[in-house]
């Protein structure tokens, strides 16, 4: 391993996923470096969510390799996929949590309880310590006044920021975002984007699926254009957006910017 590889937190090679015989991911390669913000863009149905869900093992890959901190969580041997045991997968998930389009907050727990659930139940942290840290995180996200509220009492933007707080409480190495603003009313989008921007400035490693092109352009270190189950193009945002190589990306950009 050269110096460069040390910084790679997630390396994906030849990742494949099929649903009932239909290939949805057809061999995806990408690497996420520490401190990097990677954006995944692409047309609907192209496999972006499936890619992210495979990284979190919400879907079980059918082929290829996912390495997290140098450890292969899945790899192929003699043509069939080998997945690490459940306990190893759970540990990886705890360090690479996901933020969902529809928030998926625990409905029966208030904001603070939502945030400490992971640290207490998964990381086995002391409850008092977890509460202290959760309060700190919630404060930094402007949610101090919401700690006792239930998800049903929050706006969409607040819900998504609580979901981000829940991920942050895991002290993660990478955070995965699947269209974090797509379910929000337009006026609530910027608040959540701003939260993600602040995390980026603090050096958080993040993988973001998003249709917010302006946001991607200003924030991304790397952009991956995913379509038809493969990474069609990738590179720094200026490069990718100014010089799209494939017709598919050109068409995608014009459809989005229209």
């Amino acid at each position, binding site marked *: 391993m050269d110096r460069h590889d040390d910084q790679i937190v997630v390396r994906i090679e030849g990742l494949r996923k099929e649903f009932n015989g239909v290939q949805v991911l057809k061999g995806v390669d990408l690497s996420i470096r520490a401190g990097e913000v990677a954006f995944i863009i692409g047309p609907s149905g192209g496999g972006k969510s499936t890619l992210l869900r495979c990284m*979190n093992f919400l879907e079980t890959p059918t082929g290829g390799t996912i390495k997290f901190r140098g450890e292969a969580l899945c790899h192929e041997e003699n043509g069939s996929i080998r997945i690490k045991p459940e306990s190893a997968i759970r540990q990886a*998930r705890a360090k690479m949590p996901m933020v*969902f389009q529809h928030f998926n907050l625990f409905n029966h727990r208030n904001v603070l309880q939502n945030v400490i659930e*992971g640290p207490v*139940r*998964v990381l086995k942290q002391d409850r008092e310590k977890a509460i202290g840290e959760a309060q700190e995180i919630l404060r930094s996200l402007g949610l101090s006044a919401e700690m006792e509220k*239930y998800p049903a009492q929050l706006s969409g933007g607040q819900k998504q920021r609580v979901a981000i707080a*829940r991920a942050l409480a895991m002290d993660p190495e990478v955070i995965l975002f699947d269209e974090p603003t797509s379910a929000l009313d337009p006026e609530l989008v910027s608040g959540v984007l701003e939260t993600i921007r602040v995390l980026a400035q603090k050096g958080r490693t993040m993988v973001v699926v998003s249709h917010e092109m302006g946001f991607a352009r200003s924030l991304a270190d790397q952009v991956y254009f995913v379509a038809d189950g493969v990474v069609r193009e990738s590179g720094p945002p200026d490069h990718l957006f100014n010089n799209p190589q494939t017709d598919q990306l050109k068409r995608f950009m014009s459809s989005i910017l229209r």
Partner: protein
Amino acid sequence: MYDFFFVLFPRYLPSLLEGTVMTITLSILSMAASIACGLLVALGRMSRFRLVRMVLNAYVEVFRDIPLIVQLLVIYFSLPQFGISLPAFWAGVLGLTLNLSAYLSEVFRAAIMSIDKGQREAGLSIGMSAYTIQTRIILPQALRIALPTMGGYFISLLKDCSLVSFIAVNELLRKGTMIIATTFKSMEVYMMVAIIYFVLSFVASRIVIRIERKLTPKYLLEELRRGNGAAHAGGR
């Protein structure tokens, strides 16, 4: 009329109350056992093992398709032929529990399946184990949804206990019947039994409502107020 309320009622009440206590005991024991069994059956029916699912589905089907009274008679009178002989009281508890568990497992299964799959995924995504997700995330929400229906089944159970009189358990109805056997006052005594059942169910349903109120969290009250109390299916 005067006789009924001020002479006969006090005379037979102690005996009828003994029967009432038996009815309540049967109900509470069977309910507690049915909640536990029903929950296990519900989870088992969602197991990834096909055999477990098949066996439990068959169990639910069988116990829903045979009248409770026939189930009780089989347990009490037919099982001894196979060397399984239970005292009347426990035969009653067993019969009521087997029957109610079948129904409750359906209630629990529906409640569990009504929980959005995003809840489970959120748990998974931060590294929770399947067990933690079930006990901390899914079941607490599902049980609260099932609560009103469970209450309805409890009221039904109180009344269904009268069937246990057929297998010689001295609950309320049978106590009444026994009094009639010696006094021949069937008209009056059945009326008393009816009144006691009414009071019992009436009080129980008020208690059930209070428990529901207490256990229904803020986040659900809002929804219930909007009239989404679809779970209020009641008994059978």
